[in-house]
């Protein structure tokens, strides 16, 4: 069953084409890694999935709801789609606990106690229970990103989107975040992950999508992609990424 | 419904222009003296001498805490007496223009000095250190290295302050000095056409200030580019 279905999506800012005829299917329980050089449109594509950016042509269907349809209530859809950002985007004026509960209370209308219990359980899961009373600015980048993942999970998402979750982190903090993501993948979460972490892709991805200049150049099962990428550009990209 | 009658405006244009010249004269004087005095105040504030820096801070904070209108009233009260005393001017001579100019210049200097101080502080400290390393003294380092860079950053803010000043000159109304606004009010009062004259004055101020603010935006883009 298809959870995220991107069909022939194109997008442009004025005359500048950002996405050209992109199609990707993400089935329930699948982990898809999207990679490609910077400026290739991967972040734009993932932002289109929950309607943070509009697109002009094609169709995106998430859990049988069409994102581009003006009748769709985007906030309802987004509440079910978890998203993790490059720069964490925790809310700096709230404590960690409040970051975890606010959307549960205001969007899902959960009672405070229930929201807090859920939040604390997830915070414990990412190993940060002791920091609940702190503000985001008092945590390291890796810790903040783990909180951000917990925040998304608190909404009981049907799938998760990751937009370069480790690229703003100091190298020594990357693994603590990847570990949480690997665990999540192994539990069967449907994930669409924009990342350059090829180790992560090798470990848990089902398929790898390679983008360049706004188009999907390659969409292959993990082993096929790492074994013998068909396109020359993907080969060059892999060579560059893996050389260090 | 109110019936507009704009007929008193065309005939009054020469008089209104005289008023505008007063407005512009006060604005220009206050800008020039305000910037000169404001630069000195900023330099004093940033100087290593405690006394100078304290005096400058007191001056700036005092002027920034009291309303411009109050400052003007002070100057309309004091300046004539000082002039009489020092220059032996005949009592009762019309020194309202001088008083207004002095009041505006000294008041604006406080605001200009804050803008200039911020501008100077926006220049990286390494620049002064580099100047010292070349054997240049404090005064010259300020004049040759810091101020030219600082002024570039300050131009938009200085211009914005000038627009505010231009609007604020209308407050000389309290001395019955006929600046542009005063002139418009007088004509309106004379012809029983206050509504039309006030709307006209408002429109003129708007066109001038809005155009000037577009100019500031253009400068800002140029500076940041």
């Amino acid at each position: 069953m298809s959870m995220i279905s991107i069909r022939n999506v194109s997008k442009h800012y004025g005359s500048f084409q950002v996405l050209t005829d992109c199609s990707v299917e993400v089935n329930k329980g699948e982990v898809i890694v999207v990679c490609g050089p910077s400026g290739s449109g991967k972040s734009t594509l993932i932002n289109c999935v929950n309607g943070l950016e509009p697109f002009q042509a094609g169709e995106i269907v998430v859990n049988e709801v069409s994102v581009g349809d003006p009748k769709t209530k985007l906030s309802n859809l987004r509440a079910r789609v978890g998203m993790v950002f490059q720069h964490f985007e925790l809310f700096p004026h709230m404590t960690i606990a409040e970051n975890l509960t606010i959307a549960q209370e205001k969007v899902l209308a959960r009672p405070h106690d229930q929201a807090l219990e859920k939040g604390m359980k997830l915070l414990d899961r990412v190993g940060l229970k002791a920091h609940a009373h702190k503000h985001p600015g008092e945590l390291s980048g890796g810790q903040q990103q783990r909180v951000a993942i917990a925040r998304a999970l608190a909404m009981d998402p049907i799938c998760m989107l990751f937009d370069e979750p480790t690229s703003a982190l100091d190298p020594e903090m990357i693994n603590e975040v990847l570990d949480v993501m690997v665990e999540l993948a192994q539990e069967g979460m449907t994930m669409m992950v924009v990342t350059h972490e090829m180790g992560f892709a090798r470990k848990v991805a089902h398929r790898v999508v390679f983008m360049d200049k706004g188009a999907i150049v390659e969409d292959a099962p993990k082993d096929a992609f790492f074994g013998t990428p068909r396109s020359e550009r993907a080969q060059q990209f892999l060579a560059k990424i893996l050389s260090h | 419904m109110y019936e507009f009658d704009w007929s008193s405006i065309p005939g009054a244009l020469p008089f209104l222009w005289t008023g505008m010249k007063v407005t512009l004269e006060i604005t220009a004087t206050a800008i020039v003296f305000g910037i000169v005095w404001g630069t000195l105040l900023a330099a004093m504030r940033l100087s290593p001498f405690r006394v100078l820096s304290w005096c400058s801070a007191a001056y700036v904070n005092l002027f920034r805490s009291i309303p411009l209108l109050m400052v003007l009233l002070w100057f309309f009260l004091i300046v004539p007496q000082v002039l009489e005393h020092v220059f032996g001017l005949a009592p009762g001579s019309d020194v309202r223009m001088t008083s207004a100019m002095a009041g505006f210049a000294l008041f604006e200097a406080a605001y200009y000095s804050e803008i200039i101080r911020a501008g100077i502080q926006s220049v990286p400290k390494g620049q002064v250190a580099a100047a010292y390393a070349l054997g240049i003294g404090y005064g010259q380092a300020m004049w040759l290295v810091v101020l030219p860079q600082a002024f570039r950053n300050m131009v938009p803010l200085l211009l914005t302050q000038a627009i505010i000043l231009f609007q604020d000159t209308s407050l000389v109304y309290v001395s019955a000095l006929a600046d542009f606004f005063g002139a418009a009010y007088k004509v309106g009062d004379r012809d029983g056409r206050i509504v039309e004259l006030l709307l006209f004055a408002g429109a003129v101020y708007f066109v001038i200030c809005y155009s000037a603010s577009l100019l500031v935006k253009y400068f800002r883009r140029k500076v940041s580019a």
Partner: protein
Amino acid sequence: MAYAWHWEVFLQLAASGDTTYLGWMLAGFETTIGLSLASWTMALVLGSLAGVARTLPGRLWPGLGTAYVELFRNVPLLVQLFGWYFVLPELLPPSLGNAYKQMNPFLQQFLAAFICLGFFTSARVAEQVRSGIQSLPKGQKNAALALGFTLPQTYRYVLLPMAYRLILPPLTSEFLNIFKNSCVASTIGLLELTAQGRQLVDYTAQPYESFIAVTLFYLLINVVVMTAMRRLESRVRVPGYLGGK
């Protein structure tokens, strides 16, 4: 200059017969405070709305917000005040205009000054609110939306609480400005602090004492507001953020 100082003049019975000249001053002080606080409330509300409007997606709301701000920023305060006081009652439907003109003069003046200062200051508040919102990382808005917040919720819970914290210092100076600007109301006859000071000059012929007193009152307002705002600033400071901690 031989000036005869008579500070005791404040304790003399005022011409109105019911209080001392100091009483006049205090009455003016009260009017200044009341007028400023009332206008500030209006300015905060309208300014926040206009500032938010300028950051909304699309063309319509930002355009309206910009027009609002430019209108009130590019006409002198005095002209705006005279507009509300002299022009508006003439342009209103006669029944409303007449009702206004029949109000007690103090109310008329207060109302005009209140509306004038409210609108005038709201344009400046709007600019601060807009720049506060725009200085937040763009990802904050996206993060809130991605959690399922509606756009109003995003502003209410995420963008505005941070934006207000960031703009607290410039808001403080706008707050101080409204007290200073309120003295322009003396030009339409409202007996606030400055007007009382001038009236005192006329009645007592002791200009220096009364002007010094008025100036001291303004300095007092300044000190109180600054202290209060500094306290507020440290209370809402976000740990680990910017100047936090």
